[in-house]
């Protein structure tokens, strides 16, 4: 079937099998491999992307369901102004080790701070509780998301 998905601002029109998962579409058809696969049961969140601004697990969405929507993947976080604040904070606060969970974690973090300018430790933990990390013990991920929130708040207060 014919679908058009806007990914990171560009339209991608393709003919896909109806059963194609969005994550496979993004990785294999569009060729953006920053979105990862870590499980078969919608448990790990490595495949998280933003669909119309909301985090979704792309392993549990059909490409066909994304027809007509705007998808942001990790490759779309950076803008002409540079790294997204969550990207910068993840490296500053050592929020990643192997980096496999990182794209999903950062996208959840980005969507959280877009809605909640000053999330508490518990609010961040709750927001990322659908995303597993096997390396970090989460402490620095939580810290990084809160750092990013604080920096965004600071720069918007300043402007």
């Amino acid at each position, binding site marked *: 079937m014919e679908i058009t998905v806007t990914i990171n601002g560009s339209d991608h029109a393709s003919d896909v099998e109806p059963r194609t998962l969005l994550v496979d579409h993004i990785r294999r058809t569009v060729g953006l491999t*920053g979105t990862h696969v*870590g499980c078969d049961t919608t448990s790990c969140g490595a495949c998280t992307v933003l669909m119309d601004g909301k985090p979704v697990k792309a392993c549990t969405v059909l490409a066909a369901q994304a027809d007509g929507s705007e998808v942001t993947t990790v490759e779309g976080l950076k803008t002409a102004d540079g790294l997204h604040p969550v990207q910068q904070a993840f490296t500053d606060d050592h929020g990643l080790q192997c*980096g496999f969970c990182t*794209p999903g974690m950062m996208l959840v973090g980005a969507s959280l701070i877009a809605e909640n300018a000053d999330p508490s430790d518990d609010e961040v933990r709750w927001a990322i509780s659908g*995303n597993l990390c096997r390396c970090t013990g989460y402490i620095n991920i939580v810290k990084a998301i809160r750092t990013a929130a604080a920096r965004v708040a600071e720069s918007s207060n300043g402007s």
Partner: protein
Amino acid sequence: MAAPTTPAEIGGIGHSVQRKEDARLIEGQGNFLDDIDLPSTLHMAILRSPLAHARINGIDSSAATALDGVLAVVTGDLMDQHGLAWMPTLSGDTQAVLATDKVRYQGQEVAAVIATDPYIATDALEHIEVDYEELPPITTPQQSLEEGAALIRDEKEGQTDNLAYTWETGDQGATEEAFAQADRVVTLETHYPRSHPAPLETCGIVADVNSVTGQATIYMTSQAPHAHRTLFAMVAGLPEQNIRIVSPDIGGGFGNKVPIYPGYVVATAASLLIGQPVKWVESRTENLISTGFARDYYMKGELAVTDEGRILGLRVNMLSDQGAFYSDAQPTQFRAGLFHVVTGSYDFGAAHIDCKGAFTNKAPGGVAYRCSFRITEASYLIERLVQNAAYEVGIDPAEMRLRNFIQPEQFPYETATGFVYDSGDYPTALRTALDEVGYEDLRREQAEARAEGRLIGIGIAHFTEAVGAGPSRTYDIAGLKMIDSAELRVHPTGKAILKLGVKTQGQGHETTFAQIVAEVLGIPANDIKVEHGDTDHTPYGLGTYASRSTPVGGAATAVVARKLADKSKKIAAHLLEAADEDIELASGVFSVAGSPDRSVTIQDVALAAYTNLPEGMEYGLEDVTYYDPPNLTYPYGSYIVVVEVDPDTGVWQVQRMVALDDCGVRINPMIVEGQICGGLTEGFAMSAMQWITFDDDGNCIGANFMDYLVPTAWETPRFELLATEVPSPHHPIGAKGVGESATVGSPAAFVNAVIDALAHLGVRNIDMPVLPDRVWAAIDEAS
């Protein structure tokens, strides 16, 4: 902590340098196995046994082969024609690649489909008919060793029962004497349950064998690419110069990516036969049911103690559940890994350990899950025993440890099992952690809470690990000595490339190993590129597991940098027209002793190495070192956990977790602390929720992340980290391994905390994972 000796711009040892690997990973530009997309790649899916034990009477793959897009169905018979139906394991056993005679566990590889598309390959599995004749499954090692139990390994010549191995260490006579002198014997029987490393990225391979040139380029999620190259050469008979293993970015390993799995062999054989690249990436279920389980030890420990709380001796009997094949990834001479460290951090003269392993109808594995070969089980047992001994003798568990610690002046200390601990100051470590947690106040609060019917528990674990395998006289894997290497090239502009035999899976080698060079030569860490994982472009080494990268590969890096420092000094002397022995090097500046204004930089020297040399010196500034460690390193730590247990539900919550680690010199404190937090989380996971079980038919429970529970951010406790720093006396920069310490040390602390909350009721054991229903049952039984 010692202060760094280099300025921040150079970023030598002790600086929390920001990680170099992050730049690509935060932009989605990492290159993980499944991201590799070669032209004409075919995709493989594996048909796995639904049964735990069955004879295969026939396989009909004709319908699958006939499907559009399917190129081949590989069966055991086909593999057998090429002599590849079986392969050797790392523990001297053999393992089926694709089953020919029987399936011996649920999830065992039976056939593989090669197709143009991964969806088609998976579809085709449904069309393969296997005629199974069910056999009774054996699901526990106890059943397995019973008289008359069905023989699991009937194909194995000379195998008449289900015994996989036996192993013994220590001095039985001396131990019996110690027990004869004891006032009491404290016994603990417990099971360290089957677990799985479950890195977030599963295992996978892209095998690209060129049928014309014979060149085999094999991309795989490998923690040990060089060893894998040699094993591929030995097993598949491929000429080693034609094999190139490339281990790309790895999404966590934790031991799961050490062994060679059947899927790798089948994909490589298929690529060889078809002449196109073949990709296989495990699903999570495949990962959990078939590759790399860990632990599964039934342990009985007995401690001989005096009424004053002195430990006199230790006796351990163990039975390990090996699954269908004995494939522990461990050094050849060690049947139960380095379980020897079960004597822990304590000074006593006698120990005896007797161990058996049994085959069962379960997946093989026995990988060292974030552990230096069975050290996790050993450390858990002794720390649980010592805690229980304190209750029996009637002294405080902290005091019990302080009375028995090996003292700082006793190092190097030879244990009753013959390991020589290199360095440590255990009393200071424990006292520091006790002060931080406010131990005495906590004990008072605990007593007050008890009076109100609330259950507070304080658990301690003081572990000692043995990491950095290992000295060539004792340590080899498949005959390959467990040395490791570093090659350093300094280019004319003073920038460098460091090539390693070890391979990161998230540990940050690209940063920390550059820091070692920065420390020695003064080249800024950011000017040093670190290459690893590609066997055509790096020197030989045994890989990254068992916390061996820093102890062995890090030592090689320091030694090779020092070799170049020596040559650089000679070049500097030539440039400064001074005597070689008058040249001093600090933070990249070579100066003449006594006249510090006469100096050149490492960058000047690097250029001179290619342009302006003293008479008779060879051009260039590069070298390679293979490091054979004189001993293991022995990191240790004191962990204290405070929990509150709900007496009505058995649910326990961690209130505090104070973790003091001493891993010697810390190259990058930020990275060390990051690894400790990750390890503590995995230790918490094993104590609280993470295990794999089987029903009586041998069905694996724990085959996905809905049944195999790994902690999310929500359940994970907060940690308070502390450090002391007693350097390793034999390591070139005084460092010890650290990546696994927290996983090894923390389970006992968590479990001891729950037991401590219930100790006054007489509770002395709850097996891991300490699930609320088990806690509730223990309370119920005690009261």
